[in-house]
């Protein structure tokens, strides 16, 4: 069974005919070639496949395409073109947040999701905000610091 599904992907109207149970993750990667969204656990635990769905963070490995109809999806490829995305990415680079990098696009999405609702987060807020995203390299400290740096630099962006 397939269905026609229309949604907004990184600001553009798109349509796809697919099984409504197909994972959004697979559609982004295989059908739209957006490889910045990573698969690391496949069960919604690690956050590497995070994107924004109607401005809320979701794990695309757990989202069937049927629930994407009419929604706005923003992936790392879209976010990196925005002033906010650039600010977070630059802060991650300067703050030493990036090691192997596999969790990082998802972390950038989580940072955007956090800052959008809380532009001046405390350390605790930041730790809570990225607690759905696993990183095995950094021990999180420099990711936390980098998000704090982005919040400071982004004065007014969020």
């Amino acid at each position, binding site marked *: 069974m397939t269905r026609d599904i229309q949604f907004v992907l990184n600001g553009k109207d798109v349509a796809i005919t697919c099984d409504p149970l197909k994972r959004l993750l697979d559609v982004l*990667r295989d059908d739209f070639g957006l*490889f*910045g*969204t*990573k*698969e*690391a*656990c*496949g*069960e919604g*635990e*690690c956050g*590497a496949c995070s994107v924004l769905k109607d401005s809320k963070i979701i794990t695309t490995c757990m989202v069937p395409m049927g629930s994407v109809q009419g929604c706005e999806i923003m*992936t*790392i*490829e879209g976010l*990196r073109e925005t002033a906010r995305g650039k600010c*977070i*990415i*630059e802060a*991650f*680079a*300067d703050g*030493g*947040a*990036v*090691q*192997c*990098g*596999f*969790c*990082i*696009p998802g972390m*950038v999405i989580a940072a955007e999701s956090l800052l959008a609702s809380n532009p001046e987060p405390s*350390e605790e807020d*930041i*730790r*809570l905000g*990225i*607690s759905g*995203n*696993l*990183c*095995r*390299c*950094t*021990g*999180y*400290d*420099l*990711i*936390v610091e980098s998000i704090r740096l982005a919040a400071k630099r982004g004065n007014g962006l969020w």
Partner: protein
Amino acid sequence: MAKKPIGTPMRRTDALTKASGAEKYLSDMHFDGMLYARMVRSGIPRGTITDISLPPLPDGYRFITYKDIPAGGNNELVMIKKDYRCFAEKDVRYVGETIGLLVGPDRSVLVDLLEQISVSYEEQVPAVTIDEGLACKGGAFVGENNLFCDFTIHKGDIDAVLADAHRIFEDEIITGWQEHVHLETNAALVMPDGDKFVVYASAQCPFYVRKSIAGLLNRPYEDIVVRQTTTGGAFGGKEHFPDVLAGPLLVAANVIKKPIQLVFDRHEDGAYSVKRHPSRTRFKTALDEQGNILGMDIDVVYNAGGYESCSYVVLQRGVFHATGVYNIPASRVRGRAVATNTFPSDAFRGFGAPQTLFAVETHLCHIAAALGVDPLALKSKYFLRQGDPTVTNGHVFEKVVIPEMLDQVLQASGYKQKVAEYKRGSGKGIGISFYNHGGAFTGNGEQMIIKAKARLHKRADGFVEILVGSTEMGQGLQTAFTKIVADTLGIDEDKVLYPNPDTANVADSGPTVASRSTMIVGKILEGAALKMKERWNESEDFFTEDEYKHPEGHPWDQVTFQGDAYIAYGWGVCAVEVEVDPLTFEVVTKGIWSSHDIGVPIDELVVHGQINGGIIQSLGYAAMEKLDFHPKKGFKQVGLSDYIIPTSMDFPSQGASLVHNPYPYGPSGAKGMGELVFNGASAAFIDAVSRAVDKDIRAIPIPPETLTELMA
């Protein structure tokens, strides 16, 4: 303008492409006509395959087994010994052993087909635990006694010391399996390329892969070109294990003549990839009437699983670190790696040292508790100093800066006040640990086995290219090497390029393991850069190359294991403070402080990130990363819902400092550090928990449910 110190942080060379999602990992690669693969694996721990029943395979799908290895090829993966089969033929040794590779164009069809394949076996009784392996349960399957190796090192006359002791303190320390959980799962891709094959692999050691698999097709190494793909974490899990993917893929690509990609999903990676060796360490420690330690008789056993892989080398490092950072007057350390019907254990950050360092640190805490003294007071009496004899009757050559590091940690943590304030059993505790890590290969291995080379290319466009087999896997090596070369040449870092290695055009600088890359390969690159500097104004492009030079004055006997096991060590001190809930036994970590001697940092921010990450991984090892084993089915916690690694909420931010102690044979004074920072936090954590609950802890991990049982 004064030249800035090399350690001044620079933006990592790979930071922006990774953070923006532009970096391509293996699963992001696609080639025209590319097929996908799934592994067919043993479903039982021990037995003989009697039948493999396949569903009808649609056009374009193939099932590849050992029978597809061409005449002249050998069904083996050449890791260190030739004991690791590429495909099981008749007998199987563990759940998850590779039997075949199912290949075809559609991944979902592969999953459906996989479910319809059934393998029948004649089952045998497996040996799973260390005790079962040693007892040869079900009959020995490796040699006569299931031992891959068994050796003993002596310092002084331990029998005489034990005979004269006032008291012998016996102890047993257990550590469990640990899964690497590199966020990028294991992945490889093999494609025919004319008469040759190109292997793309998420791997630490491209030259290892080539060496391991070329014999499957009876080909010279040069026919197998290995290109490392950007590697999303490794931690030792991609040292030898990529061979297990690349081998079957090579056999398949040779038959099918198309590119084939194999990417493990997380559950496969958890259930069917290598792990840290579980260990059991027994001590008989001789004390005099005043409680002074006279000697230690130590028995170390590592559970190696079904094949040896690098277990002998892992065990050597464990044995050579068994007395920790202490000058114990007499010792005997026996090491054994036992074969069991479990997935092979393999390299994992620390490479055997974390198990014995945890054991000796914890054992000393138990002695201190029995004597009624603070563990710090006991441990402080035996710190190794420059010139002291080591456990292998070599010597410590460098100045040991433990006192300076300890001062920093005591000050930052408030250790002494907290020890006075938090009574044993009060629910609050602070613990402290000391550790080291011998840099690079053991003994003269760098000189006799690795013989590393490094090459630089001065290009006509003015850029300098680093051509070595060493790999970036997240640890920051591209940045470190870039800085070393730029600093030596006196050019901007953005004039230095360091692409992922390709065995066809880089020098074999040895594997990216053993905390050796900055210390050893970095120094060779410095040499190659000095040669380039002399020729800098030549108009044509040119290459320079240099090779490893072993510092003199470090005798080592690789047969008797006597002499300088390592020519330099990294050193560390870590304190951890906890609070334990008296009802639920949940442990909340309140503070983490560390100080390390890594020589001189090549980049302070990269080093900071390594310290943070290593310590959290070590705390996970002690606190939560429980990996149970079902004797018939294998690992129980195979996904990230079940196998619990630290999140951002589990541990507080860390205080970390360095004591600079330049190493004369390292680039700009640097020593190794990647593994050191894993080696000690677990012991400090357990020390803290033990004090908080006033109970000796003899096994890790200790999640709340296990601590509850211990306290019952």
